[in-house]
């Protein structure tokens, strides 16, 4: 393998890793606060891409405006999903909540098929993102560059929100001890809504960049990235934002490099994430950055 080809794979791996990281943060934030896997996160990601797609193709809004509206719309949508599918089950057993999450995921997916149609659609080209750059013999589509940059900017903002604002402090308190946070006069429902909103916002950004990069949209597109990003969150240590980023990069790079170095294993690409998951769960169930959980009796 020449250096050029290696660099090409590496850049692809990094941009895929950043996408995974963005989506994984949504999982990790929700899990950190509610201790629940938001199975519908992948579908929220899908809704985000479709919103952007329809705004550009049907309403003919300029792409940057379409992106902003779609991101905000998805944010609201995520809050709505929480209110409808998770809030009524606050005090129910975990299995019920998980089944509700699976149900919500399938409902959105099938609604997507009904509303958007089952055939794949192609995301419109955006000149700024779809330019082909040539750097030292390596040709890279410009979106590959933008993805990690956007991810880093969003992460810095998120980091600020969580560590330096009152809402962020409330979120941290909630994730440490739900009951105690409620006693400290934290508006639990509001904070949970904000968490879902923020997670969905990041998922929407990830989704739109996914659409720009891979250009093909179908209503079931959220399923696989959704599962993989959840795995990324678990690998990094679920509930830990830095962990989600690390997990996302491990997954993205791992997937691309396996195909690059061991072409014989190309067919097993989708299995890589799951094998990694089972391996991590066995060796270090709390993930790479996770804290040791003490068992409450």
């Amino acid at each position, binding site marked *: 393998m020449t250096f050029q080809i290696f660099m090409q794979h590496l850049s692809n791996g990094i941009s895929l890793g950043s996408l995974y990281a963005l989506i994984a943060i949504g999982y990790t934030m929700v899990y950190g606060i509610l201790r629940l896997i938001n199975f519908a996160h992948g579908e929220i990601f899908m809704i985000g891409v479709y919103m952007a797609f329809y705004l550009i193709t049907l309403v003919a809004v300029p792409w940057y405006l379409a992106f902003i509206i779609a991101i905000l719309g998805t944010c609201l949508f995520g809050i709505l999903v929480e209110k409808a*599918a998770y809030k009524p089950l606050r005090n129910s057993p975990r299995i019920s909540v*998980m089944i509700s999450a699976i*149900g919500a995921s399938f409902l959105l997916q099938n609604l997507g098929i*009904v509303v958007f149609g*089952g055939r794949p659609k192609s995301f419109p080209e955006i000149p700024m993102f779809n330019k082909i750059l040539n750097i030292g013999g390596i040709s890279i589509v410009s979106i590959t560059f933008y993805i990690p940059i956007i991810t880093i900017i969003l992460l810095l903002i998120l980091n600020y929100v969580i560590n330096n604002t009152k809402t962020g402090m409330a979120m941290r308190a909630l994730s440490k001890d739900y009951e105690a946070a409620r006693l400290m006069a934290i508006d639990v429902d509001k904070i949970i809504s904000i968490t879902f909103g923020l997670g969905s916002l990041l998922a929407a950004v990830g989704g739109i960049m996914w659409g720009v990069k891979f250009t093909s949209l179908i209503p079931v597109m959220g399923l696989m990235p959704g599962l993989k990003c959840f795995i990324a969150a678990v690998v990094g240590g679920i509930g830990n934002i830095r962990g989600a980023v690390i997990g996302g990069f491990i997954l993205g790079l791992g997937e691309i490099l396996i195909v690059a170095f061991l072409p014989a294993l190309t067919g097993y690409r989708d299995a890589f994430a799951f*094998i990694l998951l089972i391996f991590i*769960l066995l060796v270090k169930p709390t993930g790479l950055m996770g804290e040791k959980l003490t068992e409450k009796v």
Partner: protein
Amino acid sequence: MKNKRILLNILSLILVLGLLFLMDRNFDSYKIRILNLCGIYIVLALSMNLINGFTGLFTLGHAGFMAIGAYTTALVTMDKATKEMNFFLKPIVPFLRDVEMSFLPALLIGGLMSALVAIIIGTPVLKLRDDYLAIATLGFSEIIRVIFTNIQSITNGALGLKGIPNYTNVWWSWGWAIVTIIFMIYLVKGSYGRAFKAIREDEIAAEAMGINLFKHKLISFIIGAFFAGVGGGLLGNLLGTIDPLMFRFVLTFNIVLIVVLGGIGSITGSVLSAIIVTILMEALRILDGDIIIGNYKIIGIPGMRMVVFSLMLMGVILFYQKGIMGTNEFSWDWFSFKKKSKGDVNS
């Protein structure tokens, strides 16, 4: 009283068999297929309910176990010529090429293979809890699917298998359904069943009472996997064609739907809801096609059926978590017209 109950059980069994005989005689092939599916889904729902409902281990790996059962059964029942026709891209491994068995041993081997995999995967994975267990088993079923897509010389890869002999008929599917029901009733009533329920209610308390957590979890997992494998085998030989895409997460979702709708932890509930859901799944197919009422034509939307099912699941879990039966079971006492004193209404 006990003799009366046994008599009633035998009578109702004869009644069911008679009913099946009549239906088998008079139904057209489409209805018989639905009848078969009902039986198969009873087996599958009970196998999932044992793990999820009675032992409280939320697993989502059923599609994987079914795939193992379906492929094993299909490969050992197909004849040599059909196999060679199927495997035109890459020849089948010689060992599998020469095997040909009748249906019962094939199903048993399918179930045992699935149980064997359950031991291999269960030993490490069952140490996990709650959502971690769910996601690990989901991951396992995806891994099975990816592996089956890639080992072409055994499973024919993405092309799948065609021309599987249609051995499954009403007697096979309902025979297995009845066997599974009886087996589950005795298992759940017995000491193992009590241990399973204790683990479901409170693991730590169960352990303190001297129940070997790991052993019982694994037993429940293995038995569930065995019946899932048999169910998969029945399904494969009913449809006549299988491919890895069939065994996606959607399949597991259908079974979760049945179990939740029937009541998590109720054998009667699973049986009832398996029948109801299977029939509904077919009846609601009209939603996907056009509906003509008088002069009006409602244009059908493909995919509407699954929307209705997802809504049903959401509705049940949000507003009526117990499902049809909760954790209650059918009993003949319902029909005794003796007046009960207020005290034992709940007994």
